[in-house]
């Protein structure tokens, strides 16, 4: 989980240097952090605070405000189930429940093998395919509860 110590990558450091003096840089930098590590590691947040000269409290205030930023490392496969209105009306809620049931974890938590985490997201913009689930960028559309097992199996086989 997140108690492994992350080191700041040269790429991230260069990005911070580039954005350092631009006004309103914090969120863009945090995006880069999340992109690099998959979450916002504590050590990196501290170092970022130092480099940007922004209080750590402010960084955490921002990180915890926005859904996009995570403080815990997510699973290898992130299952995002769309709960936009169209998907909800066509059973997105049931899909989430089925994923939760089959994986034995709730929304925003990761399976103990670190393979899957489930997220509920708002409108992925493919309402024509509702209900939709996205796994690491792959869109699975027009899903029914019975399709869930197959999807999990597919990624489990990939390991």
């Amino acid at each position, binding site marked *: 989980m997140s108690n492994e110590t992350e080191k700041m990558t040269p790429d991230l450091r260069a990005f911070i240097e580039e954005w350092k003096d631009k006004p309103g840089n914090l969120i863009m930098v945090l995006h880069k952090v999340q992109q690099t590590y998959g979450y916002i590691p504590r050590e990196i947040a501290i170092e970022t605070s130092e480099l940007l000269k922004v209080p750590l409290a402010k960084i955490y205030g921002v990180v915890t405000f926005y859904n996009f930023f995570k403080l815990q490392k997510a699973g290898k496969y992130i299952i995002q189930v769309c709960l936009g209105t169209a998907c909800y009306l066509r059973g997105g809620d049931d899909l989430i429940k089925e994923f939760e049931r089959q994986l034995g974890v709730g929304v925003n938590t990761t399976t103990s093998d670190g393979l899957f985490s489930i997220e509920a997201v708002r409108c992925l913009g493919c309402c*024509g*395919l509702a209900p939709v689930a996205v796994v690491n960028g792959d869109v699975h559309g027009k899903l029914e509860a019975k399709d869930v097992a197959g999807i999990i199996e597919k990624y489990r086989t990939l390991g």
Partner: protein
Amino acid sequence: MAKLTLDDLRKMRGERQKAMEMRDNSNKDAQVIVGMGTCGIAAGAKEVFTTLIDTLTEKGLTNVLVRQTGCMGLCHAEPTVEVVVADMPTVIYGHVDAATAKEIVEKHVIGKAIVEAKILEKPSVDIVKEK
């Protein structure tokens, strides 16, 4: 590219307009246009795009341009493909999968016959052409 002046811009527009009206960007006889918005891609537009290219290559057709465009708004029918062939009416296909893509090349582009069952309507008139 050099910075444009006002005249450059106008000239460029004139030239491109002609090319677009001919529906022919590089002396090609036919164009296959794939809707590649998020919705289209989610529904499989990328697969359609590669199948089109593969089939065309396989058939040795070099006079067909395959290009992308944004969402046409026909979300229920994604992926959508518009086919422009000289001497034929322009047709939009919906619910295109790899098999249909292949069929489009074989029947429509080569055979000049419309592929059945998956034709859609253009959603509205074009206001840019409307004077």
